């Protein structure tokens, strides 16, 4: 039995959570020492992305787009200029582009090279969006991947994939579900899911 041969197996182990945590604390202290990071910034990162910024931002944009055709037009022309109308700060989004689902046309967003994502409108990306499974397959077999994810796209519907390889960020405007005629903008926003704004889900009709 050769130690040499199996020696590198051990190197392939991931650092366990405790090691990673210790390393991160060391990095944090070094960056605070260097004046790059403040000592409240990690906690405020968690608070920002767990409490303050999330899919509700994108949902407000979608609900308004469903109810106001002129807002949708402005979104299409210059989304960064339009989103403050619904109280959304485009913040770090350098250029927001909307892609609009309609009968026969489905849009889905990805980033094959890293995991670019519209954080400002949707919060932190879910783990699956960052997975090699999604990144590798969604550009090549989106219909199969979407079906596996529970989003069957009609065979006659064209699928448009948007691979975010620049600083442009994409937001899918899903189709407005049936049975929502009488709902207010806030009620509509509550129906809009994060997955639908990435393009991996539809919004179910309200019955």
């Amino acid at each position, binding site marked *: 039995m050769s130690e040499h041969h199996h020696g590198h197996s051990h190197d392939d182990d991931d650092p366990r959570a405790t090691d990673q945590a210790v390393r991160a604390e060391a990095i944090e202290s070094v960056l605070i020492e260097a004046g790059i990071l403040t000592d409240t910034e990690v906690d405020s990162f968690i608070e920002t992305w767990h409490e303050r910024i999330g899919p509700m931002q994108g949902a407000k944009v979608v609900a308004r787009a469903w109810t106001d055709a002129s807002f949708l037009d402005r979104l299409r022309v210059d989304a960064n200029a339009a989103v403050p109308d619904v109280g959304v700060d485009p913040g770090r989004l350098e250029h927001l582009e909307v892609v609009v689902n309609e009968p026969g046309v489905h849009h889905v967003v990805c980033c094959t090279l890293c995991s670019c994502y519209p954080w400002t409108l949707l919060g932190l990306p879910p783990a699956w969006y960052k997975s090699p*499974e999604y990144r590798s397959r969604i550009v090549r077999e989106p219909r199969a991947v979407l079906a596996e994810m529970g989003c069957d796209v009609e065979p006659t519907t064209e699928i448009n994939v948007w691979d975010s390889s620049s600083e442009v960020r994409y937001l899918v405007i899903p189709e407005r579900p049936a049975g929502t005629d009488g709902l207010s903008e806030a009620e509509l926003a509550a129906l809009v899911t994060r997955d639908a704004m990435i393009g991996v889900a539809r919004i179910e009709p309200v019955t």
Partner: protein
Amino acid sequence: MDGIHDMGGTQGFGAVSFTPDEPGRVDDRWEAVAGAAVFALLRSGRTNLDAHRHRIERIDPRRYLPITYWGRWLAAVEAAIDEQEIAPPDAVANAVRQAGADPDRSAPPALGPVVALESRENGRTARREIDSPPRFAVGDLVRTSAHAPHAGHHRLPRYARGRQGTIARVYPAFVLPDATAHGRGEQPCHVYAVAFDGTELWGADAEPGLRCHLDVFEPYLSGADEVSEES
């Protein structure tokens, strides 16, 4: 670079592990350290997003997949501290030791060499105003470069090399990642969403009704009827 990060179209990965509307959260505090540290570094101007991405691309390919997203960010942060001389090379290891732990146990993955380091004074945004108008308009036929734009960081994935597509959207100008990741100025240029038919990318057995859009920086494109300089 043509690294393991360039995943579009790679086959062999299975089903996406998916639960509907799974919250986007950090699971552990160390992940938030990675996130906050990257944002702080970008704000400080000591690195830029393209150099950050290139550090991730340079992670030992044997480690890239197992350490997952936040682990890659954390490794890139530690490499930035070193490469941009934000702290002495042994600062992180010393801090681990001071916490009573063995720095070897948490050593980050090795990073491959870099052709050139980014500037030490980086802009915080990527969008720029430029005088030259976009070279292409919506509907124009274009062809992407058949080769990697250069050996370092760029944003032209392998699956879209030497492919013909149609300009679908014309975007404002942005700094060129190839330049900013390596301290070669900003070289701002227009960006386009280029639409490729599925069959152009994947051949005759592509899924029907598939159109893939990629954001392409103008230097990666030539008019579809131009003879490429390269061949």
